[in-house]
């Protein structure tokens, strides 16, 4: 639809069509329609609104202030600028998720710069920028820092490309900054000097997260910053901050709702121990706690006073044993979300089941993903224990080394409300360890029982039967991740044919070939993206797909030393911007 210049149309209400029907949109002056639409936040609702008719499309585009783009290559900055004139906050995602696991070349793309150039021209009132899996250079950060006088919030999740210099530009020039969150963006060269560059009178910060920064920051600068920023509610420091330093920060910021500690290992004097204990005791507003590197049973108790209001406890950096976890959880009855490392073992998870009846989300990460020693970590027993005690569970991410069909069947009977079920049996193609059968029945039970399931990751020894189940039952499924599974093309076909809401499909090391790929021809335009690596695709199949579907971008990444015929890594996504121009040589756009 072509955008019209804004014009006001007010027609008297007695103006009806000759056949007696009314045009509802012409009874509404644009101002009223825009007022109503400006109350709608959800971008999905807004997308629906814009499809009603031309007037609504226009009213919507003039009132949209939050821009969400799930794949930066699906549309171009120019198209966006033309359609939406009044954007104040942007959320942009770039690389496919498997880039988090080092499966993409370094310079694959998703560079934010061309977007920033457009934003600087079209949206000088931009306030917020939230990026995920994008490359952000120092040059881009400088452009950002100098182009938007009202800029308030920068959040970078899983991003790379910047150094200390880029962040310095932000902290030096963004005088109204309320949020600076680099969370899990770990770039090797990022030093800590940027923290010292906030101006002396700067005091607007509300959210500060540099938890994965590998370098030290100046504690003096940090302490001054925290004491100046009276509205600070989220503070997540990195491992370089010690316990006694943390105590001083807490004293300056008793209103914190989210805290990420630094290292929890230090030789403290009894006085220091008391001080930190009372600092935590005074932090009555804490809802979220993370960090806790090197926490041990000796120092964990200093936390207890702050735990009663905790809803999210992130222990994924704390290598704890079962007893330590159990003691800690006894103080956290209101927990909704818990992330732990598998050193807590099944015994620790039993404590979860008995202490956290309100739990909705559990993530268990492996302390050593590459260790083949089966005696450690968690098993089906731990998961079962949690499911018995935590009936409200709806999100699970579980890394384990053994699982059974029977356990999963029971788990989903206990907790039928799963929306996100991500089970990773770490040994590829591992069968049910008790019966030696495939794990088909486990995931069949998940698909059948969990009617609200939106995200699923499968693992273990799986045949096409799993995918038949998924296609047949998982009608709300939006995201599916598959690795080392399936027997033939039929598996993938079942999913493509059966799951109407599928948006993201990522597949690796499965025996799906060109026939499977091409069976989804029509489907891919309704999805955000498809990823297939180390499957049985060939260049010929990919070229055929690209030829048949001109509005899909079909990109192939060749591995080193592979032949002309194989398509090692294939990334397919819908786009109105055409093939991208910035692909590195190793990425072929067909």
């Amino acid at each position, binding site marked *: 639809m072509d955008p019209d210049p804004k014009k006001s149309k007010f027609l008297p209400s007695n103006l009806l069509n000759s056949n007696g029907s009314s045009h509802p949109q012409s009874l509404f002056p644009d101002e009223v329609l825009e007022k109503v639409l400006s109350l709608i936040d959800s971008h999905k609702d807004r997308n629906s609104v814009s499809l009603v008719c031309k007037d609504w499309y226009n009213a919507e585009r003039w009132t949209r202030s939050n821009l969400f783009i799930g794949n930066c290559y699906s549309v171009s900055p120019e198209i966006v600028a033309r359609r939406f004139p009044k954007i104040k906050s942007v959320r942009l995602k770039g690389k496919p998720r498997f880039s988090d*696991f080092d499966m993409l070349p370094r310079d694959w793309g998703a560079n934010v710069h061309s977007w920033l150039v457009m934003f600087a021209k079209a949206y000088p009132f931009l306030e917020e920028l939230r990026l995920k899996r994008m490359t952000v250079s120092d040059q881009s950060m400088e452009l950002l820092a100098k182009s938007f006088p009202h800029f308030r919030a920068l959040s970078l999740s899983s991003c790379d490309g910047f150094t200390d210099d880029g962040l310095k530009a932000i902290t030096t020039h963004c005088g109204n900054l309320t949020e600076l969150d680099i969370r899990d963006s770990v770039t090797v060269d990022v030093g800590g000097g940027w923290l010292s560059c906030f101006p002396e009178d700067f005091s607007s910060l509300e959210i500060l997260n540099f938890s994965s920064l590998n370098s030290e920051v100046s504690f003096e600068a940090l302490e001054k910053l925290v004491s100046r920023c009276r509205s600070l509610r989220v503070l997540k420091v990195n491992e370089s901050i010690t316990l006694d330093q943390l105590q001083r920060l807490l004293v300056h910021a008793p209103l914190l709702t989210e805290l990420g500690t630094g290292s929890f290992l230090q030789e403290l004097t009894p006085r220091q121990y008391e001080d930190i204990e009372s600092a935590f005791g005074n932090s009555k507003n804490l809802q979220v706690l993370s960090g806790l590197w*090197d926490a041990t049973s000796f120092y964990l108790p200093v936390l207890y006073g702050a735990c009663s209001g905790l809803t999210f406890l992130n222990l994924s950096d704390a290598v704890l044993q079962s007893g330590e976890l159990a003691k800690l959880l006894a103080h956290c009855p209101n927990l909704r979300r818990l992330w732990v490392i598998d*050193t807590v073992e099944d015994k620790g998870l039993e404590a979860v089941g008995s202490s956290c009846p309100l739990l909705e989300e559990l993530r268990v990460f492996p302390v050593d993903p590459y260790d083949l020693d089966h005696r450690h970590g968690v098993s089906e027993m731990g998961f079962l224990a949690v499911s018995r005690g935590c009936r409200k569970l709806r999100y699970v991410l579980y890394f384990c080394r053994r699982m059974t069909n029977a356990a999963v069947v029971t788990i989903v009977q206990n907790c039928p409300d799963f929306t996100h079920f991500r089970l990773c049996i770490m040994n590829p193609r591992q069968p049910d360890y008790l019966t030696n059968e495939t794990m088909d029945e486990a995931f069949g039970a998940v698909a059948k029982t969990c009617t609200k399931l939106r995200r699923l990751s499968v693992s273990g020894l799986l045949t096409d039967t799993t995918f038949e189940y998924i296609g047949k039952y998982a009608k709300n499924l939006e995201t599916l991740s598959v690795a080392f599974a399936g027997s033939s093309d039929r598996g993938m076909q079942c999913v493509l044919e059966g799951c109407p809401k599928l948006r993201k499909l990522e597949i690796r090391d499965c025996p799906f070939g060109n026939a499977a790929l091409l069976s989804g021809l029509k489907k891919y335009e309704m999805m955000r993206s498809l990823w297939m690596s180390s499957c049985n695709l060939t260049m010929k199949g990919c070229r055929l797909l690209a030829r048949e579907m001109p509005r899909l971008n079909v990109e192939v990444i060749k591995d080193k030393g592979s032949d002309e015929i194989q398509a090692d890594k294939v990334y397919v996504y819908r786009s109105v911007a055409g093939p991208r121009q910035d692909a590195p040589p190793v990425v072929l756009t067909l």
Partner: protein
Amino acid sequence: MEGMIMAHESDLNLKATELRLGLPGTDECEEMVSAAKNNKRASPESVEESGSKGTSAVKSSEHETAPAPKAQIVGWPPVRSYRKNNLQPKKIESESGIYVKVSMDGAPYLRKIDLKVYKGYPELLKALETMFKLTIGEYSEREGYKGSEYAPAYEDKDGDLMLVGDVPWDMFMSSCKRLRIMKGSEARGLGGAL
């Protein structure tokens, strides 16, 4: 010591008479982690002709795959690299680990490492270099850690300050109480303590 045990074993031919569950000749680490390249690459012609050839390709490649005990597949398990606890050695058997504190002159924080995780000095030094972001340099018996800004030292059971590398690794593991990364200039006097 190790040499003596080995000679003894070959006399008794223990391996041949060992009671095991696997077929003779199979390795103990039987759970295989097939490397990515082993994953059924059906021949191009068969793929073009019919996708169902995938099944037979699966079976044949599983047959061929040799057990590779510590083979790592790229991107598997799907764990973010910042979670791989690079700065923290694996605490697999933390009940029996040998934990020592590591301090560095001038740095405000302590680290803790498990000596059992390392197989020898080179691994340990590499880990220290990564952990503290510095270079330690080459060790020599006569001159200690020459030419490097930092030198790793340790406090032993008797409270003496020794240079890391002066004693055999096993002896070091059992006598080291605490590690200290010193400025190179201060460590000069420690070389060749034995």
